[in-house]
């Protein structure tokens, strides 16, 4: 019970946190691009766009940062047994994240926000690029830590049976990390460019500031198109890596109970809840699962039944199959929405090529609605990754059931869960209010050197 509550709390807080993270990473990069364009061509509309999307970035960062604090504390508060067991390895990338990324991000964001008209233009531009770099560095360390939980490397068990770090380089050359990190960065760029595209499309549909928002719509499509196509390749490659190191994760994502060769992919299934082994699979596409999981036309996929038997032999009795229903559907949600976004991006790319992006009613209309898809895809991706590792918290080393804090009671976790949910609803409402207000407010006036919206008019720094 306590363990389940701790899991609910971690899932709730980390999914919520990750609604904001990719927007921050993606938008920071795009705002830096806009400001670079302004630095080079000195056209005022790029400066106005930089400030406009910069304000949205700041509104979003506020909640992203404070919900990140919860993640940092939560390991020790709810998962003390885990923290004590793996701190030797897992703590290092977290501490490095603070030193290398958080200081960079927060200091230069302050300099950027308050430095308009005060810092030389070139230095001010460098500040936003350092913020963008900080956000990507932060993701790097977190992904290195998380990938170690998926596929532990660079350690040896000490005399107490605890993992001790013996090769820090291995954490950053871990194949799960390399592909997982690129996957997350691309997902963040997809998120950022879809947010920018949706906001720009809304203005274009309303016929407001058309000349200016046509620029940002074009830039977001130009970023989105290569990124989403690359993402489909990288996501597929990550699937192959996971088939090697965490076969149950991928077998469960396809509800593949029996061994198969070649393996087909089902478009939908009916049933399959509570690890029911006989769902009705609809529209089977031959060979596709072999290609996705192994990268070969006739590759073999080991089914969950055999994986369960092998794990029981290796680790003793227990259930080693993750929740198949969550795996199956989160994989599909991610893949299908990704495909739709790729089609949208191709369409957008063609419109940019023709020079008629700002006049295409249906493309703009769809682009506004597309803003919800990255959040669904990002959440589905993490569900697939984290649920697919169960019953392990660290694959093969420690089970989730043994990882929570022994001294923390169910009551404690209930109190904190309710508190976090209440606070998160309030923060989400405030964030959404401001995001919508500032998105609709229009571009700022055209004077150069005025302070940012967050700075006060009378500041004489």
């Amino acid at each position, binding site marked *: 019970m306590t363990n389940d509550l701790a899991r609910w709390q971690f899932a709730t807080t980390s999914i919520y946190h990750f609604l904001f993270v990719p927007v921050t990473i993606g938008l920071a990069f795009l705002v830096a691009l806009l400001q670079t364009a302004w630095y080079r061509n000195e056209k005022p509309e790029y400066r106005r766009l930089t400030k406009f999307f910069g304000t949205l970035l*700041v*509104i979003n960062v*506020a909640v992203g*940062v*404070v*919900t990140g*604090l*919860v993640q*940092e*504390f939560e390991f*020790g*508060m709810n998962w*003390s*047994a885990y*923290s*004590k*067991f793996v*701190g*030797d390895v*897992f*703590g*290092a990338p*977290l*501490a490095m994240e*603070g*030193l*290398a990324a958080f*200081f960079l991000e*927060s*200091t*230069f*964001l*302050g*300099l950027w*926000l*308050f*430095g308009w008209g*005060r810092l030389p233009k070139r230095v001010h531009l460098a500040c936003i690029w350092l913020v963008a770099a900080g956000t990507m560095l932060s993701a790097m360390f977190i992904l290195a830590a998380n990938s170690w939980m998926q596929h532990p490397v660079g350690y040896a068990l000490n005399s107490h049976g605890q993992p*001790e*770090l013996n090769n*820090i380089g291995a954490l950053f050359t871990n194949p799960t990390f390399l592909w997982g990190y690129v996957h997350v960065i691309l997902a963040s760029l997809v998120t950022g460019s879809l947010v920018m595209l949706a906001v720009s499309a809304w203005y274009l549909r309303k016929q407001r500031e058309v000349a200016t928002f046509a620029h940002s719509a074009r830039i977001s499509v130009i970023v989105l198109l290569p990124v989403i196509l690359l993402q489909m390749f990288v996501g597929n490659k990550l699937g192959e890596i996971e088939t090697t190191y965490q076969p149950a994760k991928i077998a469960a994502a396809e509800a593949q109970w029996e061994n198969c060769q070649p393996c087909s992919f089902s478009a939908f299934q009916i049933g399959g809840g509570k690890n029911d082994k006989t769902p009705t699979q609809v529209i089977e596409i031959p060979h596709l699962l072999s290609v996705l999981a192994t990268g070969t036309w006739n590759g073999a996929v080991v089914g969950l039944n055999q994986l369960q038997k092998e794990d029981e032999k290796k680790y003793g009795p227990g259930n080693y199959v993750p929740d198949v229903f969550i795996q199956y559907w989160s994989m599909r949600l991610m893949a299908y929405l990704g495909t739709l976004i790729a089609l949208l991006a191709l369409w957008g790319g063609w419109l940019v090529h023709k020079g008629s992006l700002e006049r295409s009613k249906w493309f703009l209309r769809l682009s506004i609605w597309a803003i919800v898809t990255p959040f669904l895809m990002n959440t589905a991706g993490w569900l697939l990754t984290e649920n697919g590792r169960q019953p392990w918290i660290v694959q093969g080393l420690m089970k989730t059931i043994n990882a929570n*804090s*022994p*001294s923390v009671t169910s009551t*404690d976790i209930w*109190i*904190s869960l309710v*508190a976090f949910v209440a*606070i998160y609803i309030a923060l989400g409402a*405030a964030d959404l209010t401001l995001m919508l*207000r500032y998105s609709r407010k229009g571009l700022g006036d055209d004077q150069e050197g005025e302070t940012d*919206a*967050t*700075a*006060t*008019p*009378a*500041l*004489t*720094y």
Partner: protein
Amino acid sequence: MLHLHTLWFVIIAVLWVGFFVLEGFDFGVGVLHTIVGRTEGERQTAISTIGPWWDGNEVWLIVAGAGTFAAFPAWYATMFSALYLALLLVLAALMARGVALEYTRKSEDPRWRRTWTWCATLGSLLIPLLLGVGLGDLLAGLPINSSHEYTGNFFDLLTPYGLWTGLTLLGLCLLHGATFLKLRTTDQLRERAASLARPLAWAAIALVVGFVIWTRSITAGPDVPDPVEILAVIAVLFAARLATSDHDGWAFTASAIAIAATVGSIFINLSPNVMISSTNAAYNLTVSNAASGGYALKVMTIVTVILFPIVLLYQGWSFHVFRGRLKAPPAAEPPPAPIGAAPPA
């Protein structure tokens, strides 16, 4: 020979000291900005003195936490799970305050502003108080069993010494905020900050002297205060002396030293323990029994030696860039949507 785990204990202590010296004035400004600022324009000016910096200052706390996780996993695990509900309150306060500092002035709606101003004020008050209670508890001792698990409940966290430590750190943060505001503003704002600094300094003297005497009575060492404790007392006396003078920079320096010496003394008295067990001294968590292995500490040391000086350089540069004083807009100029309170003087 210096053990790496001893070095890491020093690094963690330095991070906590740095956090309280830097974010200490943020907390003080967060609490005091509605008192020194009587018009909306003045409040806005007062809170803007920390605008570019507070977020970077908070990172010192995050790195102290993450550094503890990496270098002393057992300490991190026991401390964070033992202080569970206290840390929940700290998190709630950190979240409310952090978002408030960004959001308050993003809307003109008086209710919005009032709500977020309360969040900023209360958050700034609660965080140093609660963290102080937690740090005091490390030294006062908590019920911890032989497997380093906390066996008490929430009320066992409210040790009298811990509460006094919390009040002491809160008092010092308020004083530090007042000397900071005095250093960073002009005219009436500066005068009001100075007149607040005076009584705050007297309160801080009482708190720090009480803290030193109490610390002497609960620790095993001699009854004579050690040099760092004496430094804390002298610095807070200087801060009181300088509070109403024209030496704004020195007054701020004095409050910074007072806060640094007070936080530093907690870690000096704690060493070589990191958490004291009130159940049995044999169950204490120590610098050696809570530490990570040699390789992990070595890697972390190399990374810190390379990165930390760079961080200090650019954070220092940011302080340099925004070093000028802020002037509140003239009271005649109607500020956007004033929050009730007293009319402009």
